[in-house]
């Protein structure tokens, strides 16, 4: 490790979101002329850390120093003016403006007080050339670019701010291998220029090849920082996992042979689904794992009738089905239910009452003709609230007054009212406190015991292990591995998801090739 003074230092940084502690008393520093990997599971606090470093979030407590001076960053612009630039996963590009305009969005070159478009285009071209993106025309609109090209523009935009600290949050996940090479070269160049690059990635090969320093985060805490080569990959994975799978999950269910309820074969949609083949047994809980954005969400949406132009075969109880809309997917004979990704925009009508949200998917069951029966409604709402032990003052209050965990329970309860056969869950416990998580796990098991089939996508590997009978891992729009029984371990899931089968125990290797 170099002996240079840290360019940026965090001391005792904590960040709370309500009752959850995203970061706990973190000390962290990065030095000029280094490429520094930040490793950790989903929810380890990496993204909170970089949001604080780049001025998007303010820490609950603790201090931040840049070049040895204390700095309080109020906005991304201010952070950029101090040389801290972040390339976000959620793009900060304006879709209807051109590439050049986006690269110099808030600080364009000027002539007579006006934006000098010619100079802007030339400068943008130079920046794009630096990352070997001569194929991108600076005059093109960002919305007309593919996702990977947009990501490169985002990188060019960051370079245009002449960073001293450059933060890359999984910036390579959307890129082609050729672009990834370009970024590697770029980072090496920047290293020589004395820039400190913070590199967040799930890909171990990448980290191995590129970074000189590694820091591992877990549960919002900074666990350890070490130079490359000090630890084996195995040790690193252990540091990232850290905890044992504890007793917060219901008892494992015995593996039994189940009759197939849902059978998907060669399901294709756009670039996201490249031929998914999967079977779900009656009463089974099947976990869906893998890195974020490998087609898991699209698979659930395709089954629920949201996507147009889905190819492939979906059979339920041996009969071929097509789902044309959620309205048809939720009714007989398919009887799907979907707990969507974002409960605030897709799951709930936040301003509406708890009662209305509970009943919105099953209005037919509480109505006589077009009229909603108040007595039926009251009974159904009371039953739903009781069954899921949702803590409410009154069912008439807006659902936005509930805690995140209870809100998610409302989404799940809404779908239990329709009495579905197959329940699709998209990361149902994200951002939810531990107590409620346990209740949701228990509920999932109860559902399965009642003979309902569950397809559970989760970004939390521990959850897949603790909760599911079987786990299917998705990689680039396909099922890359299916694990069951004792094969389901955190190490196996993680390495299948990262596609780094060879660094782990040998006896697991055959499952990776499945």
């Amino acid at each position, binding site marked *: 490790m170099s002996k240079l003074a840290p360019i940026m230092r965090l001391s005792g940084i904590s960040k709370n979101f309500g009752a959850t502690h995203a970061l706990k008393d973190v000390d962290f520093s990065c030095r000029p002329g280094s490429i520094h990997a930040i490793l950790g599971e989903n929810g380890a606090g990496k993204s909170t850390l970089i949001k604080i470093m780049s001025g998007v979030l303010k820490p609950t407590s603790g201090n931040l120093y840049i070049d040895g001076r204390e700095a309080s960053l109020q906005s991304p612009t201010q952070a950029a003016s101090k040389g801290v630039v972040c390339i976000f996963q959620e793009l900060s590009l*304006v879709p*209807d403006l*051109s590439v050049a305009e986006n690269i110099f969005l*808030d600080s364009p070159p000027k002539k007579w007080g006006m*934006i000098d478009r010619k100079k802007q285009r030339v400068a943008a071209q130079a920046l794009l050339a630096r990352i070997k993106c001569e194929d991108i025309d600076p005059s093109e609109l960002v919305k007309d670019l593919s996702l990977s090209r947009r990501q490169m523009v985002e990188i060019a935009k960051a370079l245009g701010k002449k960073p001293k600290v450059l933060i890359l949050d999984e910036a390579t996940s959307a890129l082609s291998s050729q672009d990834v090479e370009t970024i590697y070269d770029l980072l090496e160049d920047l290293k020589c220029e004395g820039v400190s690059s913070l590199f967040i990635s799930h890909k171990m090969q990448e980290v191995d090849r590129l970074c000189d320093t590694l820091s591992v985060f877990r549960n919002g805490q900074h666990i350890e920082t070490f130079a490359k080569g000090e630890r084996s990959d195995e040790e690193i994975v252990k540091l990232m996992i850290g905890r044992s799978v504890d007793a917060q999950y219901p008892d494992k269910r015995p593996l039994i042979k189940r009759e197939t309820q849902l059978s998907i074969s060669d399901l294709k949609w756009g670039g996201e689904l490249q031929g998914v083949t999967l079977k779900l047994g009656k009463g089974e809980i099947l976990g869906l794992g893998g890195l974020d954005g490998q087609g898991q969400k699209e698979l659930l949406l395709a089954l629920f009738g949201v996507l*147009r*132009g889905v190819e492939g075969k979906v059979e339920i109880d041996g009969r071929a089905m097509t789902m044309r809309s959620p309205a048809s997917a939720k009714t007989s004979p398919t009887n799907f239910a979907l707990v969507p990704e974002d409960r605030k925009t897709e799951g709930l009508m936040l301003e509406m009452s708890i009662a209305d949200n509970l009943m919105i998917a099953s209005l037919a069951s509480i109505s006589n003709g077009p009229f909603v029966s108040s007595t039926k409604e009251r009974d159904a709402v009371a039953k739903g609230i009781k069954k899921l032990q949702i803590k409410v003052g009154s069912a008439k209050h807006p659902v936005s007054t509930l805690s995140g965990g209870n809100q998610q329970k409302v989404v799940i309860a809404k779908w239990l009212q329709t009495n579905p056969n197959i329940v699709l869950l998209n990361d149902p416990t994200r951002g939810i406190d531990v107590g409620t998580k346990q209740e949701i796990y228990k509920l999932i098991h109860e559902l399965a015991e009642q003979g309902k089939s569950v397809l559970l996508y989760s970004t939390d590997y521990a959850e897949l292990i603790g909760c599911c009978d079987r786990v299917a891992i998705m990689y680039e729009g396909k099922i890359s591995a299916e694990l069951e029984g004792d094969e389901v371990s955190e190490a196996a899931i993680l390495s299948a998801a990262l596609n780094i089968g060879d660094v782990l125990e040998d006896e697991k290797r055959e499952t990776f090739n499945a």
Partner: protein
Amino acid sequence: MPELKKNMRLLISQNIGFTAATIILVVLWLLYNFLHPRGFSSAVLIQNTNESVAIVFVAIAQTLPVLLGGLDLSVGAVMTLANCVASVLVSGTPFQIILGMMITLLTGTAFGLLNGLVVVYGRIQPIIATLATGSIAIGLALFIRPQPGGDVDGDLGWALTNDLYELVATYGWWDADAGWFAPISWFPVPLLIILVISFGIWIPFKRTITGRTVYAIGSSESAAFMSGLPIDRAKLAAFTLAGFFAACGGLYLAIQTSSGNADISQAGSYTLNSIAAVVLGGTSLLGGIGGAIGSLVGALLLRLLAFYFRILSIDPLLQPLIEGVVLLVAVSLGALRTLQTKNRLRLFR
């Protein structure tokens, strides 16, 4: 050369609505002149542009709030207010006339700023805020001019509603019959006013950070915020400029008709036509796409449709029907793409 060709293609495909509107305008205009007994004459052009100035300015005014993703229901009213102010003040000595014109424009600009303040700091949705302020503007206009009428300087009216020859001849700036002047002396003053003011203000504005922010807000307010753009300033500027352009329309209308008229239904129809012109010119009502030059074209297109009724001796009574159908067909064609969206969730953004 291939570079240039590529850039042209890009420019066209990025502004497909604007391009289509412009081509249709040019074709229809040429056809119109062929059909017109005195086609391609300066007189016809003068008459046509005279009747277009007010709606062009009001449409340009509407463009800015629409680019933000909002709507300004007060543009017609502010135009009317300026029209009435001008009908009182634009007369007398040359100095008084110029002062009166400046006060007129200032009135509209101030009113636009008021709209912006209510929207930005009062946090009221633009459509409702401007619905209310529009009422206030009409009230003020009625207060200034309870009955239609006015006393606008006649020379000015003559000079600004004819060709350059008459402008120069009226004020005697130089010998209007001078040989060097002949090639351009036919050019209509109203067209010159439209071009100078709209290009002269819009193009520089678009090239400021504030102007760019207006687009960024309409396209993705969160990305604009993440990139540290001045959001409040851009919103204030957009509504203020809208007020200014509306006032330009009102001022010209006063000069052209040498009177002011605080007509509520006329103000309303100007506002509604401005929305139609903005959409026809290729600006998206969702914000972020389009521009004032498109609205200029859209407004001219709307007027040109009306001129056709005259020369084809179609019953002018059919005019609103055709206008409405043209608008419906245009927006429905633009919307056909949504029927092919592959992820239906994207429809709801």
